[in-house]
């Protein structure tokens, strides 16, 4: 049973991530299904979603204030700098940096995506996704604590893999739903269809590339 779950996580992860072993964290002797940076991004995404759900902001329809937006956007920049500078060979990076910069990047996405999904351009939008600096600090503390727990190995392999893969699927489905909505199709059915097509395309690309 364990091998089945491990294989499932690895298969889904292989559709979205390069899974290079040197860049992947290990928990309990097993490589995670996503690389350190992707694990960080989707961990941040998942923790932020949980945080906003606890705060009952899953129906938020208003963007955060400008100062909060600037802070969030500033925290997204380190991941981009880390990725670009290491890719160009300007400096060396490691899994700890990849994980933490990825977490701060991923945590920003639901703060914008949830209000974007509920936003009414011609109506009244009242509920902000993040209401103040204190809430934002709480969110990033929770996210950083989760990243530290993942890095140390306090969180079991199955839990980390489950929330990472769930975040990946949720994000892909969300993109498909937004695309279906913008094309004017029936949201649910068209989103499912697009999701299936996207998964098929990813699988085809994966099969074309050598392991």
């Amino acid at each position, binding site marked *: 049973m364990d091998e089945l779950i491990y294989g499932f996580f690895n298969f889904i992860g292989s559709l*979205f*991530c*390069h899974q*290079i072993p040197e860049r992947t964290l290990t928990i309990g002797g097993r490589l995670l299904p996503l690389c350190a940076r992707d694990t960080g991004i989707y961990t941040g995404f998942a923790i932020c979603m949980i945080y906003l759900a606890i705060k009952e902001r899953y129906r938020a329809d*208003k*963007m*955060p*204030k*400008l100062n909060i*937006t*600037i802070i969030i*956007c500033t925290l*997204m*920049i380190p991941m*981009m700098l880390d*990725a*670009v500078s290491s*890719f160009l060979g300007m400096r060396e990076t490691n899994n700890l940096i990849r994980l933490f910069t990825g977490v701060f990047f991923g945590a920003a*996405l639901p703060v*914008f*995506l949830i*209000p*974007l999904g509920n*936003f009414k*351009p*011609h109506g009244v*939008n009242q509920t902000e996704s993040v209401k103040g600096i204190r809430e934002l600090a709480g969110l990033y503390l929770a996210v950083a604590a989760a990243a530290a727990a993942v890095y140390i190995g306090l969180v079991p392999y199955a839990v980390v893999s489950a929330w990472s893969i769930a975040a990946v699927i949720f994000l892909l489905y969300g*993109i498909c739903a*937004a695309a279906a909505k*913008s094309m004017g199709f029936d949201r649910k059915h068209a989103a499912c269809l697009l999701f299936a097509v996207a998964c098929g395309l990813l699988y085809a*690309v994966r099969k074309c*590339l*050598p392991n």
Partner: protein
Amino acid sequence: MQVRKCRYCGVDIAADYENCPFCGERVVSPEPVGETGANNNETGGVPVGEPQRDGPDGYKDPEQLSFEELTDAETGQSERREDKNDAGNRAGTVKDEGPTVCHVESAAGTILNQPLTNGLKVFLTALTVLMPGVGPIIGIICAVVFMNSEVDADRRSFGQALLITALAIFALACISCFGIAMVLTALKEAPGRWMS
């Protein structure tokens, strides 16, 4: 009753007048906007947001009158009309403690109330799409500002579109990086198999 001279036209007027009833000029020096409430409370005047516009004899400063009030004055009507769409301009007038402040606030309100031009929209979209890394960040910040705008729906809908564009560019960049990393890794590890 205490009397003083108007410094503009030289006519004797009552000391408690804020504006000269003859030339219309303001005869008291402007005070900072933040102190308005305190002064009003001390003098038992009207609260902030509804300053005393009328002189003791019912005189109104023409500079402080809105278009509707001027029209009403001309037609002899004294009823005040409430226009919610003109709230920004009215706020600029109401907070006024001097002509300069009034004009600056009115100008700012006019600029902020203007609809976005097509040129600005194209510029922001191009900046978001074409400038890697920083462009989407700027796009997100601008989009949030526009989406939080309470002035018009055009700004909000453009902000929504700009945010979708910025996030899509982020997603495309990530997918591209993933693809490049996969291909480079494949080339490095098994060049023969990849070429065949």
